[in-house]
Every structure is written in C-alpha cells, then in structure tokens.
C-alpha cells in the first residue's frame, strides 16, 4: 500500500506539473515529424540533392552542354582522356583496355602507372610512344559516363535537377497563390458566389488537364517569343501551375467553410474588420496545415508532369535539360548505353520518394485526429 504523500510532496508535484510547458500545434507537429524516420531520412537526402543542384556549376569541370568528342557514349568509369598518351599505340599495347569512343577506359591508377613506366623519370620512351603530360585525376572525368553526343551525364543530371526542381517549386507556388486566394474567397463569401466559383472549378476538374498543357505547348511552339528556351521554361511553370491550383482551391475552400463559422471569425466581424483582412489575417493562417501537406505532394506531381511533357518532346528544349529529357534520351539508347537511362531515372525516383515520404510524414504530424 502506498504511503500517503506529505503535504510538501504534493505541492512539489503540483508545481512540477505546472512547469510542464504546453506545446503549440507546430511544436507538436515538428516533434512528431522528427520521430518519423522515413521523413527525416528523406529530408536529409532531399537537402543533399537540392544542394547538389544549386552548386552544380562548381561541382564539375564540364559545362552541361559541352561535348567531349573523344568520349562519346562512354560508360561510367574513370575514363582517361587518352589524347595525352598517344592513344592508338597505347590501345595496341594494352588489349585489355576497353575502347570507348576514341578514348580508352581504364582506372586512374593503371594509367598513372603506365605513364610512369613509359614516360616517367628515367624511363626512355619506346618506339612510337609520344609522351604527353602526366595524367591527373582531372582527366578522369565522366564518372557517370557520357551521353550519345559526348556530354557528361553527371553534370546533365545536376542541371536537369535544377530545371525539374525549380519547375516543381515555382509551379507549386503559382498553384498555391491562385488556389489559396480563390478557395479562401469562395469559402468565405459563400452563397451564390461560392457555388459559381466552385462550379467553374468542377468544370475545369473534368478536363484531362495534361491534354490542355500539351495543346498549349504545341500551339506556342511556333510563336517566336516562346522559342526562347527561357520563355518556354516560364510557360511550362505557368501552364502546369495554372492547372494544379484546382485541388488547392478545393481544399482551402472546405477548410475556410468550417473556419468561417468559428467564434473568432464572428468576433472579428463584430469588431468591424474588413472581409479582405479577415481572409488574409484570420482564415488563411488557419488553413495552412493541410495546404503545407498538399504542397509537399504537389511538388512531385508537378515534377512528374514536367518530365512527362519533356519525355514526349514538348517540354524544355535543347540544350537545356530536365530529368524527363534525360530519361527520354536514355530510353532511346538503353540497349547500348543503359547508364543513360539508369542514373537519371534513379535520381528522379529517389527525389519523388523523398517528397512523398515527407508529405506523408507531414500529414501524419499535422493530423489532429491521430494525436
């Protein structure tokens, strides 16, 4: 049997209980999110990918559109630029060295050792061997291989990441902006305005949107203004974003409808706050939870939509690239150059997984029912 607590102990326990701080929704959500291992790992991987994409120009010696004519369609390897070691003779003397394009594939160590042997200090160059400069690690360049016209695949994947990720983010912001404003307005004003506005969304919803994006891309392909790669790029943002806002508008409207009846909104109305201010100051901040979840799930679907367009040849144009373009090129060459398909596809799959896991994690973290 437990001993009755002394008066002091009781008091102590009570103050201790009072000192436990209440947690806000956001602190709680963050704690729950960080307990979700898949989401945390995804966030780490995604940050690495984003960092790689941002730093892409300084991460490789190659330009994304530069062609290396000595190494066209080379498999991933630490291939040396054999122009520095008279290549044909070298190939004859080393039958085990694989020929790729006009270069020879071998490890850096082998190449260095061979160079030391033939041209290093104290060695006398044999007949017909022309000694170039000592090979450096920089010559071993295309470690994910090159594509069918000799461009470095690693750099192209990173530049593809820049395009794909920025399309995903910017188009989502477009969708977010239109969707939140539209949905909050419809939900807040309600009545006939609401039904007309949502009827419009329903109609748009019935359309197979990707077809409209395709039509838009087709139609604009002949307009000189949109032939400029950058303008076309912006058009893709706008086209995809302009369609993706529909779901956003629906979600926000539903949330707004329920919030509108809450007491604090009534209080704001009674205090004479304008409609606009109520929507911006009170309604929108309260619908942000589901919106954040939706955003993390929209980014991957937009990346997919852009890749889909690019895959069909209607998205970004040469020499710009995106994951869709790379996968499409890879699919065309997969029988002889499978690395051109495998690496971009892998990169895109990993990114999409990360976004989905983060989205799921956020949904669980922000769902009050699950507490």
């Amino acid at each position, binding site marked *: 049997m437990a001993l009755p607590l002394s008066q002091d102990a009781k008091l102590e326990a009570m103050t201790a209980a009072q000192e436990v701080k209440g947690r806000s929704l956001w602190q709680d959500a963050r704690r729950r999110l960080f307990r979700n291992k898949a989401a945390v790992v995804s966030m780490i991987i995604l940050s690495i990918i984003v960092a790689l994409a941002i730093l892409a120009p300084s991460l490789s010696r190659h330009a994304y559109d530069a062609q290396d004519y000595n190494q066209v369609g080379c498999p991933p390897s630490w291939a040396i630029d054999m122009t520095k070691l008279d290549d044909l003779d070298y190939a004859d003397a080393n039958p085990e060295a694989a020929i790729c394009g006009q270069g020879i594939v071998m490890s850096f160590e082998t190449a260095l050792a061979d160079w030391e042997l033939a041209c290093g200090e104290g060695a006398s160059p044999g007949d017909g061997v022309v000694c170039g400069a000592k090979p450096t690690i920089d010559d071993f360049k295309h470690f994910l291989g090159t594509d069918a016209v000799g461009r470095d695949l690693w750099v192209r994947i990173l530049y593809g990441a820049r395009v794909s990720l920025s399309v995903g983010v910017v188009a989502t912001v477009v969708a977010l902006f239109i969707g939140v404003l539209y949905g909050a307005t419809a939900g807040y004003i309600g009545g006939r305005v609401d039904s007309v506005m949502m009827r419009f969304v329903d*109609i748009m919803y*019935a*359309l*197979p949107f*990707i*077809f*409209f994006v*395709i*039509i*838009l*891309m*087709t*139609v*604009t*392909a*002949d*307009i*000189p203004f949109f032939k400029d790669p950058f303008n076309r790029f912006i058009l893709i943002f706008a086209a995809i974003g302009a369609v993706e806002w529909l779901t956003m508008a629906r979600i926000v409207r539903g949330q707004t409808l329920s919030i509108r009846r809450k007491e604090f909104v009534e209080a704001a109305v009674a205090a004479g706050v304008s409609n606009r201010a109520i929507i911006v100051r009170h309604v929108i901040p309260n619908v942000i939870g589901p919106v954040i979840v939706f955003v993390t799930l929209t980014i*991957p679907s937009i990346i*997919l939509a852009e*890749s*889909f367009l690019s*895959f*069909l*040849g*209607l998205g970004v144009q040469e020499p710009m690239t995106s994951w*869709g373009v790379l*996968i*499409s090129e*890879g*699919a065309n060459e*997969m*029988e002889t150059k*499978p690395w051109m*398909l495998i690496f971009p*596809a892998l990169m*895109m*799959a990993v990114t*999409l*997984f990360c976004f*989905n896991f983060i989205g799921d994690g956020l949904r669980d973290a922000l769902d009050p029912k699950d507490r």
Partner: protein
Amino acid sequence: MLGYIVRRLLGAIPTLFIIVAATFFMMRLAPGGPFDGERRLPPEIERNIKAAYNLDKPVYEQFGIYVGNILTKGDFGPSFKNKDFSVSELIMLGAPVSLKLGLMAMTLAVFIGSFLGVTAALRQNTPTDYSVMSIAMVGITIPTFVTAPFLTLILGVYLGWLPVAGYGDGAARNMILPVVVLALPQIAIISRLVRGSMIEVLRSNFIRTARAKGLTDAQVVWRHALRAGLLPLVSYLGPAIAGLVTGSLVVEQIFGLPGIGRYFVQGALNRDYTLVMGVVILYATLIIVLNLIADVMYRVLDPRVRLG
C-alpha cells in the same frame, strides 16, 4: 434516379462545350497556318487549300462549322498532316489498339489491385501488409515513362523473354509489357484504396454481427466485407480511366503501338491541329461519360448515397 442522370447529362453539356471551344481557340492562336512548309506555295494554290479547309472564313464561322460537323456527322475534319486521312479515320484506325490496351490494363489493375488490397487489409500490420504497401508506394511514385524502359531493358533486352517493342498485330507476347506497365500505377492506387476501405469495413458493426452469428472468416469476407469494401473502386473508375488515357500516351509511344495516344503525340509534335483537337475532344468526352457512369453506378450500389 432518372432525374439525377438527366441533371448530370445536362451539366456535362457546358463542360464539353467549354472543352471544344477552349481547344479550338487555343489551336487558332498559333501563328501561321498548318501549311507553312519549307516550300512557299503559290498564292492561288494556298487560297484554294485554305478554302478547302474553310480557313478563309472568319474564326467564329469556322468554329460553327467544326462543331456542326462533329454533332451531325461525327466528323472532326481532315488531318492537316496525314493528307489522305480524316481525323475520324485516324481515330478509328487507332481505336482498336488503344481500346484493347486500355481494357486489358484496366482488368489487370482491378483484379490484382483488389486482391493485393484485400490481402493487405486482412493481414493488417504484418510483413505482408507492409510489403504490399511499399510496392504500392513504388508503383504510385515511379512514373510510367520510367517503368516502361526499365522493364523493357530487363525483360526485353537482357533476358530476351519479351519483344522490346512493336504491336505484332496484337500478339499476346507484344501486349504483355505495355499492359503491365500501363496497369502498374493503377494497381498501386487501387490496392491502397481497397486496403483502406476494407480495414474500415472490417471494423464496422455489421461485420461484428456476422462474426457473432458464427460465420467463418471466409464467409465474412466473401459475403459481407468484400461488397462494402470494394465499393470505393466504383467511384475510382473515372479517375482510373483518365490515368490510363494519360499513361497510354507514353506507353504507346515507347512500345510503338499504333493507337490513338501515339497519333495524338505525333500530332502534337507535327502540329497536326485538327488531329490533336479531335483526340482531346474524344478523350474528354470519354472521361466525362465514364465519370457519369461511375457516379450513377455508385448510387445504384450504395443505398446510403441513394437515400442521402
């Protein structure tokens, strides 16, 4: 019920009209005519061609003619790039292939998807459940245009079990890869959907009653749980068709199947405006009609919706 159907049909008309109008005017926005080739045509010939395609009339009149021809004759006009064909002829050429592909993929998706979903729900929180759900996650995340080349690379190129591409007059060997690739995302979505609804159903009171009166597990599942658990599948029919249509664009392109989707993509790349327009209108109609059918079926099947 009849009133509901009529109301929905009437509601579909403005939607379709907007689709046709939007497509038509977007196409007309494009600069230059469809006949601006490398070769400059003599002006009189150009005038004749334009007259033949009604391009010399004002835009609204062209629109009227276009809509009129669709409604009265089912005629989407001549293809601008495949000179000897009308759009309707091209669509009819591709339809059997696309229909076969779509139906096979749909059947596969519904059966495998429901099977996986029910299995996962019956073994909730077991390794079976987790593996089914992770595979579903893969299926949802990885797009068709990645799975198609990958499966082709493994099964077609490396193992040599299946042909890499081609229609082969619809031989089963040629259809396996396209159908599987097209069905994969749908299998994933359906299995998730069915798992969720089955779990909910299995917890409900009437299942407890069924168990309480001594039915075996198999009887409970087959006779009671499945009927309610598979219901959400019906309302997913519409989105599934939309997904299959979008997927078929990629699948037909990759595997070189002569279906509507391939014509559509080729048309978009060649700026064959009438062909693109025709296919979009066809697909939009298809999706709207199937959505309608799905909603009606749902009402028929679910007494709660009928009463509500």
